Every structure is written in C-alpha cells, then in structure tokens.
C-alpha cells in the first residue's frame, strides 16, 4: 500500500491523524507493537515538521509518503522550512538532559527505525523499518 498526503494539520490534530493513518495499514497484518512504533515516529516527524520546519504557519504544508508491505515500511516527511543541523543533536539520554521536556523526537525515530536519512538540509526525512516475518 502506498499513500501520499499533503497536509496542513495543527499540532493537536496529529495524534488523531496518525492513529487513522496507521489504522489503514491493518490489512497488512503487521504486529501491533510495530504499528505503535510506526505511529510514534510519524507523529514525532510530523510534529517537528509543523513546529520547527513550518514554524506553525498553517499556510505551509507538510508532505507525507508511506509505502508499506508486510516486509518493510518506508516513510518520507517533508516540510517547507529551512532544515536544521541534524548531525549535532544533544543526546536526550545524557544525565544533564534526562529532565528536559524536549529533544526526544529525532532520537526516538533513530532508535525505532531500521534506517533514517535526512535530505534538503533536514527539511525532508526518509525512514525505513524492515519487518521480519
């Protein structure tokens, strides 16, 4: 199943949207813990795209592609912002960061997906999860 989306969601709409989006994958019979991870990484990447990329400007869009089979799930999310220095993010698991309210999104994405790559200076993220059957 492949789907492409042009979105202008506000932050509070994200959970409902991702819940339905991941719900569409149910016919593929993917383990529910994996669907949890997939939903979480989409949510984190969408929140970043809306908040940091598009800076909450709802006239800007976020573009989302999913290509899912029972073997792998590929996701691409792109915003209309300037990107960021994705190689220089502080580790949220360091003692001095453990109490912080933010800084876990990209880290979770990297941990939960098999492969993560940034493009366009960071304004476009491509991530893949390989599924063992």
């Amino acid at each position, binding site marked *: 199943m492949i789907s492409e989306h042009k979105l202008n969601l506000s932050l*509070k709409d994200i*959970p409902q949207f991702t819940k339905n989006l991941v719900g569409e994958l149910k016919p593929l019979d993917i383990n529910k*813990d994996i669907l949890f991870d997939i939903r*979480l990484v989409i*949510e984190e990447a969408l929140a970043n795209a809306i908040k940091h990329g598009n800076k909450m400007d709802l006239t800007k869009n976020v573009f989302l592609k999913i290509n899912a089979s029972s073997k792998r799930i590929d996701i691409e999310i792109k915003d209309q912002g300037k990107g960021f220095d994705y190689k220089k993010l502080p580790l*949220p*698991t360091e003692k001095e960061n*453990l*109490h912080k*309210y933010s800084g876990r999104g990209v880290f979770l994405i990297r941990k939960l997906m098999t492969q993560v790559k940034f493009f366009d200076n960071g304004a476009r993220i491509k991530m893949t999860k390989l599924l063992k059957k």
Partner: protein
Amino acid sequence: MKIAQENKNDVVICKIDGEINISTSPELRKFFDNLVQNKTKKIILDFTSLSYIDSSGLATLIELLQRIKKIDGKFYICNMSDKIKNIFEITKLHKLFEVFENQELALNKF
C-alpha cells in the same frame, strides 16, 4: 483519555485509559494540578490501560514529576505494558521515574 481516580488512605491512584499525547496532555496536567493543589503527596499512575504515549506525553510526565517534588511528594508508575516500558527504556526515563510491576508493589513503597 479517561482518568479514573481511586483513593487508598492518603494515596491517590489514577488509572489512565487511552493515550497520553500532544492533545490529551493538558487534561492530565490539569487533573494532576488539582491533586497537587489539594496537597496530595502520594500519587500512583496506573498504566494498565495506557495504549499510547509520544514524546510530548513523556515531557508531561517529567513536568508532573517536578511539580510533585516541589511539594515534597512522590509519584510512582505501575503496570506498564511491554511496549510502553520499551519506550521508557530507550529514552532512559525508567531511571528518572519510579516504576513498579503492579499497584501493590507501588503502594507498599510509600
């Protein structure tokens, strides 16, 4: 999200049903604020029916932890599903929070 409150002596047990995410976090925060304002110092969050949490949900929990510490209180978490536990372990937040297998173990710790 639904929160069911149960009082056992001076401990308040909050059973959270649903998701702690960017749109439900304010509700949890408000509920918790009420408890703290009423000087509740012993709180257990029961995660049996928690189906989902995202990084903004994690941030909310960290916030709550700091609020309860300010009034010299404590809050424990119990009954995490394997998946939620996995998210806490990846982010190492299981070191920040006091997490118990079940309500009884959490209750006995106060």
